[in-house]
């Protein structure tokens, strides 16, 4: 492995991006395009990870890590599988009302773990499909089929149903118990969910659903940063993997004279500030060692460490400054802040490489590590293997930093710009002629 200290930023980023991209080639079932949630044995597929995979294949093609033919084959396998999959109320189907279950059996493609029909994960899957449809714009029958299937799959989603007769979209549904009784309200990673839902021609979300979502926004001054608060960093990143939020503003951001991109930048700095303070006295935290998000953890238990009672978690959303925080760092979320705050994201990556070789080995960042707990190396407890969501986000965010490729693709996607407009976004690239729906026909 090359010494990170001797490498340029560009070379270092290429190294981590390429390694992250490899995840999708290694953990994909070529028959149905499903991609494993994690690299662990017997991991089921996560539909969100499939969405990231579909978004990453074009990056792979452009970077020369995958042939266009292979990318088309993988994309088509995925789209054909979902189009032909079972859509019904049965507990062991693939989806319902155009949405899909969060986790699917890698081979049979049906629901596992009694998981929920997931609104946000279906959204990320659709975002990946739309990315593919924008990228594969050739006239060949196979590329045409990618676009046709994507359009059909998108139109099949009944967003209106997903409101469950409430003002906002529910977080999920189960055949056994119906809708989960909490919705997507308050700032979260679900911005893109509302964008795609609002743009749907056959089953759109009503415009006031976005107002309902944003009605619990909290505009706070924390550590002297004015920001739209959300504790976990991934919330400030997921929708941004596809949508360039620079200089486009909805009603809320116009009132605050900010935008969501700037908000993510400040949030990254707030994360760093939190780690610098290290109020809970965790090992490792510092100005270059931060990253608090939904990630894997040591397991749900209460431990006594140096006489202090500590509660640690398994897979859970960690956030700042109110917690929960168990000393687990999600290194990928620091790196995925690259487009917003390149200096501190790169400094964090270099710190991880220098201080925690056990964490950065094989150039693929784990879901989480916890230096406060004992382990084989300086990283302490390290999450086994890696998670597809994290790797996908790394590939896309590094690409957006390097070339803005995904952002540029999606700026041309009529559904994205229409959804943004329905949500009240104006200005920036939305004002450019090519972003206008009528200019794209």
């Amino acid at each position: 492995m090359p010494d990170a200290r001797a490498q340029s930023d560009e070379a270092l980023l290429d190294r981590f991006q390429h390694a992250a991209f490899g995840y999708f080639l290694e953990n994909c079932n070529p028959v149905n395009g499903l991609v494993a949630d994690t690299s662990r044995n017997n991991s089921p597929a996560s539909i969100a990870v499939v969405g990231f995979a579909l978004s990453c294949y074009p990056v792979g093609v452009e970077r020369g890590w995958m042939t266009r033919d292979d990318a088309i084959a993988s994309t088509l396998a995925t789209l054909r599988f979902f189009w032909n999959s079972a859509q019904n109320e049965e507990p062991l189907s693939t989806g319902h009302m155009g949405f899909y279950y969060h986790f699917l059996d890698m081979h049979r493609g049906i629901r596992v773990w009694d998981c929920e029909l997931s609104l946000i994960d279906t959204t990320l899957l659709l975002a990946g499909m739309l990315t593919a449809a924008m990228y594969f714009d050739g006239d060949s029958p196979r590329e045409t089929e990618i676009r046709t299937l994507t359009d059909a799959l998108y139109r099949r989603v009944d967003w209106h149903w997903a409101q469950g007769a409430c003002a906002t979209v529910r977080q999920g549904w189960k055949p056994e118990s119906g809708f989960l009784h909490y919705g997507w309200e308050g700032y979260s990673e679900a911005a893109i969910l509302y964008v795609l839902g609002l743009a749907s021609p056959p089953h759109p979300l009503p415009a006031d659903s976005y107002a309902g979502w944003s009605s619990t926004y909290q505009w706070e001054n924390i550590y002297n940063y004015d920001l739209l608060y959300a504790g976990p960093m991934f919330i400030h990143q997921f929708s941004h993997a596809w949508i360039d939020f620079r200089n486009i503003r909805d009603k809320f951001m116009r009132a605050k004279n900010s935008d969501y991109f700037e908000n993510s930048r400040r949030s990254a700095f707030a994360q760093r500030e939190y780690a610098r303070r290290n109020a809970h006295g965790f090992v490792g935290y510092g100005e270059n060692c931060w990253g608090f998000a939904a990630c894997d953890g040591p397991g749900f238990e209460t431990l006594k460490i140096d006489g202090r009672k500590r509660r640690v978690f398994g897979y859970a959303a960690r956030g700042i400054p109110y917690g929960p925080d168990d000393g687990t760092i999600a290194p990928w979320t620091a790196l995925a802040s690259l487009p917003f705050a390149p200096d501190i994201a790169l400094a964090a990556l270099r710190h991880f490489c220098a201080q925690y070789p056990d964490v950065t080995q094989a150039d693929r960042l784990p879901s989480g590590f916890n230096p406060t707990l004992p382990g084989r190396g300086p990283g302490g407890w390290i999450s086994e293997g890696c998670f597809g969501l994290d790797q996908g986000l790394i590939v896309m965010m590094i690409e957006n930093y390097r070339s803005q490729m995904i952002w540029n693709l999606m700026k041309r996607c009529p559904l994205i710009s229409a959804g943004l407009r329905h949500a009240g976004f104006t200005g920036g690239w939305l004002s450019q002629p090519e972003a206008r729906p009528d200019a794209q026909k």
Partner: protein
Amino acid sequence: MHRNNVLPELLYQETHGPELLANTHPADWRNPVPKDKYNLVVIGAGPAGLVAARGAAGLGASVALIERNFIGGDCLIMGCVPSKAILRTSRLYAEMHDARNYGAPVPSGIAVDFPAAMERMRHLRGRLSGYDSVQRLREEGVDVFFGSARFMGPEAVSVGGVTLHFQKALVATGARPKTPDIPGLAQAGYLTNENVFDLIHQPKRLLVIGGGPLGCELAQAFCRLGIEVVLAQDDPMFLPGEERDAAQILSDALALDGIEIHLNSPVVAVRLDHGQKVVDIVNDGDKRTIAVDEILTGVGRSPNVEGMDLEAAGVAYDTETGIVVNDFLQTTNKRIYAAGDVCLEHKFTHSAEASARIVVQNALFLGRKRLSALNIPWCTYTDPEIAHVGIYVREAREKNIPVKTFTILMHDVDRAVLDGEEEGFVKIHVREGSDRIVGATIVARHAGEMINGITMAINSGIGLRALAQVIHPYPTQASAIRMAADAYNRTRLTPLLRAFSKWWLAKGRA
């Protein structure tokens, strides 16, 4: 288990102490001979009734006070007073276990003495009952009648076989715990705040149903007293309506204490099995079954509106929301007022008392005081405490009030760090573009004490700029409020002002 209207037998047991009974309902009490007409007849001797009765009597009014159970009401007997006494003991145990973080050795063999904790509570309750004792009330000129009140018409009420005629009346009969509608619960038996403080022996395992203030406070206290506590809450978070981040910190604190937490989890069935209470809890379709020794419910309160023949007096009410009052606390009978839990949405001792003060002025002295003008703070006395005053961000946005929140983390407050009490925050909400405080939430070990500075600022119309000028002794935890004001001041330093300042200072160096 429910004892509405029934004198709890246990109260006569010696565990409650003779002091409490002598002060709150002496066995040999004889109701006085009623006067021809009273300026004010108060029904219910809880916090609202006591404040009104004493306040009116102090101003020279002839006052009758009717109480069917005990002077002091829920607050004294089965509410704030006993619960806070137990919280204090439980905190001591928590700190003993945590002694190493304070630079002290953990005492060896910490064994919880549950009966001693309960005995301390009863002793203190007895002592505090003296302040509002029936003897003192009599000395202050209040005619105290024990018995059930029943309206005889729009201007008269009967009690103990006599009729009291009034110029004005106040209904302050409070509220009682709601009964959760769970199959099998009544048969299996359960505790509420009305009898949980009668516990003599420590149960091994306790299920608390309801993650509101009462449920959270007592779950934490009993857990720290060595009981295995399971806390089940229907909603996705504790303290519904409270700020999400406050609820998050509380949830973490409760879990760290060792409480088994079930959010989004309604209890659907209870049954008795070999002396155990077996409980089914459902989370998103997944059912879990647990076995406990006792169940405590805290799922809200119902107003005490029944049995008084309010209809005879022309007083409208709803069994869920209580007596209907206008902003002046008048009922649909203009001579009759209501105050406290029987009519208020926010059922707190201090809001009951504040509403009673309004009634005295409005009923007897032509006052026009409004309920809506009150800024009522509240506090949940968990560790850390959660205190709030004014409006929430959610409400502000519903009312189209643009709000900005200035947040200070307690881990940035020196004294909180030194005290080892750095969980929490101070959030002050101001109207965007101004320094006008519209609300605040504090999560801190002493949030209930800290919120007062902000309540005073809101009441007095003092903004954050002025608060920045208030000098706090160093180091205090309440200086977090000044730090929030400082943060506000920093945001006023626009790039233009900064540039001007730089230019001015450079000029000075030239």
